[in-house]
């Protein structure tokens, strides 16, 4: 399909294990965002990519969280030594970059990866 694809859709893991979440953005979208959505909460910004670079990592909650993007396309969010408080839906979104960091085109979201840490 032509939309943003995320995998896995559901992941159940044990406390202390590492997890990788994948995002395949819309072709041609240079901007890519990761967000986290906990129950009853809004979307918490994690990291922004422009191409393969991440000029804004300000939302990553701890050094257990990291992300990379390769080929200006697929991105992977890695959570090391998972904790129960990491349980949430992790959403990826892509958009065209409109030339200024404050200028936002439409963000196209994937359906998210639901992470449950037991």
């Amino acid at each position, binding site marked *: 399909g032509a939309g943003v694809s995320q995998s896995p859709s559901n992941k159940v893991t044990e406390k202390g294990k590492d997890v990788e979440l994948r995002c395949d953005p819309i072709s041609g979208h240079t901007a890519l965002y990761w967000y986290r959505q906990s129950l009853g*909460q809004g979307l918490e*910004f994690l990291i*922004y990519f422009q191409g393969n670079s991440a000029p804004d990592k300000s939302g990553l909650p701890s050094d257990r969280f990291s992300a990379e993007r390769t080929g200006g396309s697929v991105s992977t969010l890695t959570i090391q030594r998972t904790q129960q408080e990491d349980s949430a839906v992790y*959403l990826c979104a892509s958009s065209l970059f409109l030339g200024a960091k404050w200028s936002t085109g439409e963000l196209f979201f994937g359906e998210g990866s639901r992470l449950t840490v037991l």
Partner: protein
Amino acid sequence: TQLLEQSPQFLSIQEGENLTVYCNSSSVFSSLQWYRQEPGEGPVLLVTVVTGGEVKKLKRLTFQFGDARKDSSLHITAAQPGDTGLYLCAGHYSNSGYALNFGKGTSLLVTP
């Protein structure tokens, strides 16, 4: 940290009623967007507003951006069950990074 506040948090109404939800911030937005999210799906963009005082209409939905660009409202006329969902406002601040900051949303339930 800038904070977007949305109200009400929950709203349950009957089909045919009108409603307004609000989004407020203490800081000026460079731009503001409204998204709608259904269970199990990602948010979908409804509208983008940029100019203070701007009003945009999308069928039965009317969006207003405050003159000072610190607040916005979404008014739905004659709500339908298909309007049920989580309505999120999201804004860029001129002194922030690349993050598009989201509020916690208004969860709307429209019953037949």
